[in-house]
């Protein structure tokens, strides 16, 4: 079993431009240290209709209200998250969809680096394929991989529960099973920037195998960066 850079196709080249946009990195940095409710703010704004900051401040009184119990640092963070989320929302429908996906991937990478980061920067990678002896390689690379011996992982990232599809579940499970065939332990993880309840609804009717796929949702994102 080995990891390999994915050969960039036309889609990947275009998407790489989104991934490298400073707005994506800024959003990921802010969301990595955000509270659950701040992440929920980002989700709502990036997918909402209104681009009026005042409207969103009023919808989240616990973050922005005069009587909010949040400390000043959290309030400042809420302001910054609102700003970047509005910047994404203002990009237009097609672009915002790509930005949202790129932000979840970047956030996942950032959190995993906190846990597995090594000085060489090669422990946590993006857009990598996992190859197995005698097995035809998957076309689609994994969004994020952890390439630390003893903690190998392939991670796919989704903006919403609706993005959980049979293809995604099969690819993750196949990778895990092929790794096991080679006596390697590969964790397979699905990070979804949505509520666990919505993901459970999606998975309830999924016939694709997912018993061994770890699900990380909006409520449990911090687990990605937690120390072992």
């Amino acid at each position, binding site marked *: 079993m080995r990891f390999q850079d994915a050969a960039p196709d036309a889609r990947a080249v275009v998407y790489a431009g989104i991934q490298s946009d400073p707005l994506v990195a800024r959003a990921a940095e802010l969301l990595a240290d955000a509270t659950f409710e701040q992440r929920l703010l980002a989700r709502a704004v990036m*997918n909402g209709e*209104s681009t009026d900051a005042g409207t969103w401040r009023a919808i989240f*009184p616990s973050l922005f209200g005069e009587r909010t119990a949040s400390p000043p640092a959290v309030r400042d963070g809420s302001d910054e998250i609102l700003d970047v989320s509005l910047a994404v929302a203002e990009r237009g429908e097609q672009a915002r969809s790509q930005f949202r996906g790129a932000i979840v991937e970047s956030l996942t990478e950032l959190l995993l680096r906190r846990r597995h980061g090594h000085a060489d920067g090669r422990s946590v990678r993006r857009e990598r394929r996992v190859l197995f002896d005698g097995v035809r390689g998957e076309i689609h690379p994994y969004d994020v991989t952890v390439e630390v011996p003893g903690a190998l992982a392939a991670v796919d990232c989704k903006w919403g*529960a609706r993005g959980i599809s049979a293809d995604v579940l099969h690819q993750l499970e196949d990778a895990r099973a092929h790794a096991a065939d080679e006596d390697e332990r590969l964790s397979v993880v699905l990070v979804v920037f949505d*509520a*666990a*309840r919505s993901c459970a609804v999606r998975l309830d*009717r999924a016939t694709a195998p997912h018993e061994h796929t770890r699900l990380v949702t909006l409520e449990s994102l911090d687990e990605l960066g937690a120390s072992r």
Partner: protein
Amino acid sequence: MEPDRAPGVIPATVSAAIAITVDALESLAALGEDVDDEWQYVQDLTAAWRDRLTALEVIRGDDGIEPTIGAAIVLLADEAARITDPHRAIDWLSTLPQVALASLGERP
């Protein structure tokens, strides 16, 4: 979609806030059903979140809420009512109840 409630009425109880949220949820579901491939998911998702909101109402329905929270619920429902794209409506079927529950001091 126009909200099916009297304009300017701010809910003063958890029960009233949930009623507004459930109305908005069902309007989003009606729009999301236009995506044929996701019809079942829309039904399941709507039911799951309606159940969560109803469960909260059973426990805290009579609790009063501050005007800022009531206003937040109304604005949230208004925001949902602005959605015209069925795909975005499906995404909001999940977002709307989470935000409403957070406003009411609950986890999703």
